[in-house]
């Protein structure tokens, strides 16, 4: 029973400058199989990994104008896996020629007491949904093809209905700030998915 292999100081802190680079698109239900087939060929894993996740979006209203948003996600098909908490910052306004949406991202794995803990912190749940789909990887690139389901009764994840007749496709990379070649790699990958799906930089503000 030796001491854990660390110095006397516990490990504190993480990486504050991780950025998420994102491209989004969608395909109708009928086109899903062809897209999955193409992704199987292009990506690393032989068989796509499927998932069923329940995500809750929490808001913390303070004295400032806009509330602080946190996303808490947990797996419905693998209940023992830790919860995942995510903070996403405002999209970086900058180089218009940059091919992907870039925003600060903080990811935290947490225990199953996350929901109660967030409520105790003062957060209130704004909305929730279920996401079912597949995840593919190619090096640092992650492609997620999923369908959103609306939860009909709050807290009841069994009773859901699809939000639309299509699947959302997201291509993302997590990288330290300043690595602009990432968005070029993403654009090149996205080209290979055309014309099955067109992945674009979607500005969330334009949807408000």
């Amino acid at each position, binding site marked *: 029973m030796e001491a854990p292999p660390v110095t006397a*100081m516990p490990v504190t802190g993480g990486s504050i400058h991780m950025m998420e680079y994102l491209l989004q698109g969608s395909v109708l239900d009928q086109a899903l199989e062809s897209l999955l087939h193409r992704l199987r060929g292009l990506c690393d894993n032989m068989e796509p990994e499927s998932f069923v996740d329940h995500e809750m979006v929490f808001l913390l209203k303070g004295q400032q104008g806009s509330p602080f948003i946190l996303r808490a996600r947990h797996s419905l098909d693998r209940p023992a896996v830790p919860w995942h908490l995510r903070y996403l910052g405002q999209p970086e306004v900058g180089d218009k020629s940059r091919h992907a949406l870039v925003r600060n991202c903080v990811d935290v794995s947490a225990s199953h007491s996350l929901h109660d803990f967030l409520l105790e912190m003062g957060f209130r749940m704004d909305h929730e949904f279920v996401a079912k789909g597949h995840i593919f990887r190619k090096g640092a690139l992650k492609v997620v093809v999923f369908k959103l389901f609306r939860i009909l009764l709050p807290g009841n994840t069994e009773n859901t209905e699809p939000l639309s007749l299509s699947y959302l496709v997201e291509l993302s990379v997590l990288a330290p700030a300043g690595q602009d070649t990432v968005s070029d790699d993403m654009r090149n990958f996205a080209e290979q998915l055309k014309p099955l799906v067109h992945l674009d930089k979607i500005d969330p503000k334009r949807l408000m």
Partner: protein
Amino acid sequence: MCLTLCVYVCVREIVIVFRARSVSQVPVAEGKSVQQTVEMLNRKLEQLGAVKQGNFCVDCETYHAGAIGNPGQPPKFLYVMHNSEAPLSCFALFENGPCLVADPNFDVLMIKLKSYFQNAKSNKVESRGARYQYCDFLVKVGTATMASSARGITVEVEYCPCVTANDCWNLLMEFMQSFLPSHVPGVPSVFGVKTDGVYSPSDTMAQYLELFSKLRKQQAATGSGMR
């Protein structure tokens, strides 16, 4: 002295375990300083046959929920703690409230939340010291400091083979009596709250938090020669 009873379910090879532990505070010996009392305890453990295995550190930062909450309600304190025994974890607790076990990125998230939760840096409490192994027991004797002044002594005793807290309390007490004759503490309050009786690392942090809160409130440790 807080006894953290940790129980681990598995074979020795498995490192991540829940062990029954007791964490408690030891008063400073008459006429001695904190440092001298700690050295005395360490020597007693070595005489018993315990072997020193590295050092440990448990720290606790206080965040004050300033800008949120309903007016008229008392302000909330969020405590973020770290334990060198679980180096890739970060513990966040509310006193008598829920406890969250997260990865070290939680500290980064608290930085993002700084306009809602202010870090009271002067309230940070740390306990550091040596880590001893004696057969199935792990003993950690630490000096608790706040703002660079020693506030007291913490002793954590862990009984590794048992995960059910209430089953090994008597054994822990007997072991503690062998090196802490006059200061054996009562049953930690976390034991009473357990429904299934299984101990977990967050129970250890809750015990440390209770201890640190007490140390914050009391004056700097008294005793001649105390710095």
